[in-house]
Structures are given as C-alpha cells and as structure tokens.
C-alpha cells in the first residue's frame, strides 16, 4: 500500500494493515493485521471473533444494511475500496456507516483515490486515505484545507454553515 494520510494532515508512519489476499475457499485466515473482504469475514466471522486486531474492507457497492446485526466496535478499522475515484457510492456508504450504523472506529479510503477529493472524503467521515506516492500525499494534504467553509452539513460538521455562524442579513 502507498503512504497513508490522516485527516489532521499527518502521515501515518507505522501502518501495518494489509489487504487479505485469500478468499473464502482458502480456509480460516492466519493471524495478522488483515483487512478482510466481506465474504471472508462472513464465512469465518465466528472463528475470527475475539481476535484483537480485526479490520474489514468493503467495496463501494456494499449494502450497509448487512451490518445491522454486526458489532462494528470489534473492528479497529473499516476500509472502503474505490475501484474508481468517480464511484460516489463509497461516499454514501461512509455516511451510512457513521450516521446510521454509528461506527466510531477508523474509516479508511483505499483504491483509486484522487488527492482532489480528499476534502469530500473527510466530510463523509473518512479518517485516513491511502494515496499512491509522496507527491500525491502532499497534494492531498493541501486539499484538506482547500476551503475555509462549506455550505452543507457533513459527518464532521453536522451543522450547515447557517447554523454554525451568524450570516449577516442584508
């Protein structure tokens, strides 16, 4: 994986998490800092439950309703994998995880992440972003503060601009 940017602008230096490459047919996964794809987790959830360091990786098409019965607090990390940066489903999925499933742990964006959309990802509730290289990390960092304010409410700021500040009438 490439460098990982945190939403406070720092780079996450000691990051161990790796996408688990095995599938359902490969038997129970060995110990390790894995991000499990949903089918693997589903198949082995009983065996995996209780492990100390668990993480999920969802694709953007994932239906958050499947998580209704799952204790999300057991995951240190949930990743959402963007096949293409233009797939906005990942944004709504993040919002649903935060707002409807009340997931509090780390939410990470992986895959085809464009530095220019970092401020959107942050506002949808992502904490960390895997980018391609140091140059993109620098660009992504700039985009963290590209705007001083936004009009609409977001996960990070549940109040729209007009509730946050007093906008002067004419």
């Amino acid at each position: 994986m490439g460098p990982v940017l945190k939403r406070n602008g720092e780079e996450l230096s000691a990051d161990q998490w790796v996408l688990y490459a095995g599938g359902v047919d490969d038997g129970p996964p060995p110990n390790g800092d894995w991000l499990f794809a949903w089918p693997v987790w589903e198949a082995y959830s009983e065996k995996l439950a209780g492990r100390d360091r668990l993480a999920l990786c969802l694709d953007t098409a994932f239906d958050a309703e499947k998580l209704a019965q799952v204790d999300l607090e057991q995951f240190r990390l949930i990743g959402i994998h963007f096949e293409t940066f233009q797939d906005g489903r990942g944004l709504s999925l993040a919002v649903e995880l935060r707002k409807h499933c009340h997931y509090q742990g780390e939410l990470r964006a992986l895959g085809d992440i464009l530095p220019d959309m970092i401020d959107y990802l942050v506002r949808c509730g992502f904490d960390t972003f895997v980018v391609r290289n140091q140059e993109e990390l620098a660009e992504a960092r700039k985009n963290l503060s590209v705007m001083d304010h936004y009009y609409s409410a977001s996960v990070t700021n549940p109040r729209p601009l007009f509730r946050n500040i007093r906008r002067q009438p004419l």
Partner: protein
Amino acid sequence: MYKYDQYDQRVVDQRVEQFRRQTHRYIEGKLTEEEFRPLRLHNGLYMQRLAPMMRIAIPYGLLSSEQLRMLALIARKYDKGYGHFSTRQNIQYNWLLLEEAPDILADLARVQMHAIQTSGNCIRNVTADQYSGVAHDENVDARPYCELVRQWSTFHPEFDWLPRKFKIAINGAQNDRAATDVHDIGLDIYKGEDGEPLFDVKVGGGLGRTPVIGRCIRKGLPVQHLLSYLEAVMRIYNRYGRRDNIYKARIKILVRALGAEVFARQVEEEWLKIRDDQIDVTEEELNRIARHFEPPELEPSPDCWPELEAEKEKKTAYGFWLKNNLFRHKVTGYVIVTLSLKAIGNPPGDATDVQMEGVADMADLYSRSEIRTTHEQNLILPHVRQTDLPKVFEAARKLGLAAPFTGTLADIVCCPGGDFCSLANAKSIPIAEAIQRRFDDLDYLHDLGPLDLNISGCMNACGHHHVGHIGILGVDKKSQEFYQVSLGGNSTQDSSLGTIVGPSFSSAEVPDKIAEILECYIDRRHSKETFLECYRRIGIEPFREAVYGASTKT
C-alpha cells in the same frame, strides 16, 4: 437579487485557486486526462469539437447589469466576441483556451459568478420560472428556495460523484414555465392553508434518449423539511442508480426499475432517519435569503394596458413586437419584456459582446438593473414601465434584439448541434435558420399562434425536442444528416412527450415538411384552437397523411 456575503465570496474565490492548481498540474502532466476530465467538468469546462467550451452558471436565470457586462467582457477578452445562452438559463463560450480558464473563473468571481457544477455527474444549476417574483400568475416566488438548494448542493460532500448529471427545477406559478415535469427532481411550490409554503416533489422526469414525465412521490412537503428530503432522494439515487451503463444511469431509470411507489418508500425510510438532523433550514436562514428577493420598490406608473392592446392590433413592427414580446407584471403600470435572441440568421441564443452590453445599459435605464435568461434562450427585462415601451423597443431594435415573434414558430429553441458539439449527429443551427427564412411572414406566424419548435442535434436533447409542439431531432442515417420530426410535445403543466411522425427527412426537405404540417393544422383547426389543442383533438394520423400521403404506414 441574491448578494454574496463574505462566505459566499470565499467559496468561489477558493474554488478558483483550486482549479488554477489543477489546470497547472494537468498542463505539467501531473494529472492524467482521465483524472483531469471530471475536475474540469465540475468547473464547467468541456473539450469540444474545435476548442474548449465553458458553461457558466446563471443561478435560476438571474443577472445584474454588472454581471452581464462581465459576460460581455469575457466574450471579448477570451472568446470570439459572443456567447450562447442555453436552454438551462446558463451561458456558454465556445472558443476558449484551456490555460485561460482559471482567469475567466477569477473574473467571474469578481461579480459573484462561477461555473461550479455546471457539468459533470453532480447536481447542476437549479432552474426556475424566468418570471419568478414578477409574474402575475405566481403563487410563491421560487427564487429563495432555488438559492437555498443552490447553497446546499454546492460542494455537497456526498453528491459530487453521482451516477449521472442531476437537474433540479422549481416552479411557483400557476403556469409551469420551468418544465418541472421533465427534471430529475421537479418541485412545485405553493401556499398551504396557513400560508406556509409546501412542496410537491416529482422525480425521474427527463429528456435525453429515454424521455419520461416525472412522478410525484411526495405532496405537501413543508419547507423546513425540504433539504433533508432532497438529501434522502439523492442518497437512494447515489447508492442504487446504475453505474454500469451511462445511458441507464439517470434517476429516471432507477425510478422506473423500482416503480415510483417503491422508490418513494425507500426515500421515506431514509428520510425518517435524517429528518430530525440539523440539515434542514432554519427560519432565520430562510428569512435571510428571502430578504434578497424582496421586490424592488417600483414607483407608481400609469397603466397603459388598453392603449397597448389597441397598438398591438396595428400591423406595424412595433405592434407585432408588443403583441408577442410582453408578459403581464404583478404591478400595474409595469410589464415584462422579452429581448429576442432569435433574429433571423442569428444562431438561437447567441449574443455578441455589444448586444450584452447594450442590454446591460437598457436594464440600468429601464429595468432596475435586472435581467433574466429564459429556457427559450432569450433575455428578459423584468421591470419595465409601460410608458417606456417605445424607448425600449427602439433600443432593442438598434441592438438587433427586437425580433417580434417571441412565442411563435420562429422563436426556435435550438442546441449548438454539429457546428460545435462533439456529440452531435447533425447540425441544428442551419435547420433553425432555414425554417425561420421559410416562415418569415409575420401575419402568417401570428395566425399560427403559440408554437414551440425545438431542435436537438442528437438524442441528448439539449434543445428539448421531446417537449416542443413540433420537435426536430438530428439523426445519423448512413453517415448522412437526417431529421426526425415529432409532434405534440409540451413542457408546461399538462406536459406531454412528442410522437414521432414517421421516417426522417433530409435537411433540404425539413422546411417543406414543416409547411405541410402547418397547413394540416390550419385546415383542421376549430376557430381559436392552438396547434397543440388541435393536435390533441385530432391525433397524429392526419399529420402523417399530410406528410407522407394517405398510403404510408409507419
């Protein structure tokens, strides 16, 4: 008019700087074409057949004279001296340089304008009735709600990467001039029993290759829930709209696949989860926005309506102009004037820098410095004293903006087509001109009565041909440009989609075929029946016979 405060200004200024960096990175090769493409589209920039094209937002069609002067300046400084007003009330420039695009945006920001989200798969410029706030048949002024939606949708964290583009229109008058039935979301706003504004929400309407009339999924939504409800609709669409096929990605396909009832239920479920969040507008904010749209204080001016009626009957240039280019104002003594961008030979919707500056001057003199852009690609002066009409006519005539046939057959709505657009199947501007030249007899045009003729150069339907009383669509037949004609479309409150008459025609045939259709109407109409009413009574068959002969089966 809405005036930016420091926050609005900061948003557009910072956006300009962001786009400047992005353009720079692209030119330096640090952003690939594929990565830069959606970024430039989100800032209104297309790569067209001949040069980059930029679409600039004119929120719900409202312009100040200062802003229009800036649009003129941009035409002169960066383009070939003209711009094209589109059917979605925006303006487009066709001959730009990529390197200069950030400078154009910076110039626009100086007059509180931008090109944010004017293309790409995001929520586009919100459109409204061009007569909002001044029309005599208005229930509620739509503009404050348009501005509310504009701000909510600008850089919304979740909805900038939708399956496809998304268009919202709001209408607050008895006659729907905003074509809300054919928008992704169409909002009808009216006053409830206690005077509070309520919304009926229609979804899944649209033109393009699968034209559909929108379905109402919620009636009587109170304004304090508007944003959370819109957010619920958008979330369902963003999650479940198709992304595998761009021709099936609009919300109308999702609504049709699920059925409007199921779609409505899903939205309702989502909405219940979020309706008590803080997304929704406060009364204070709504009042703040509404204050920007308070009607100007118009000094009393004598009512000349009876005299004008008499003048209209005179077969003078002025009389014809009065007859077609006026609309009744809320305030007695005043009138709404259409300045036509349809002079014969002028590509519909095009205006030169000189014309734009001329209109800005006219607005300063005669219309409280205010201008509107229309869905029919004309300009409007919304607050003209009836007593000023002779002077306004004279000024418009000097600028070539007094074509006296607004609302008639010659007031053609037309997309840029094959002359500019890289998606086109056929040219559209020359067809518009050929039809205008063929039917240039004012008496005949007036005898034909109200007629919407719309031309699109391809199935994307930017010329809204499906909802023209007569629609013309450019098609590609063995690499030749052909034209398919449809009849009976309509975009107002009893909206309908046109029916194709039959096999398509060559460009040379089109004016004759239109003539045959019009003759058929004149032969069959009852006394005061309009073209649309007559068509609805007699159906398509008589027109088919007129065009193809009695034996043709299609």
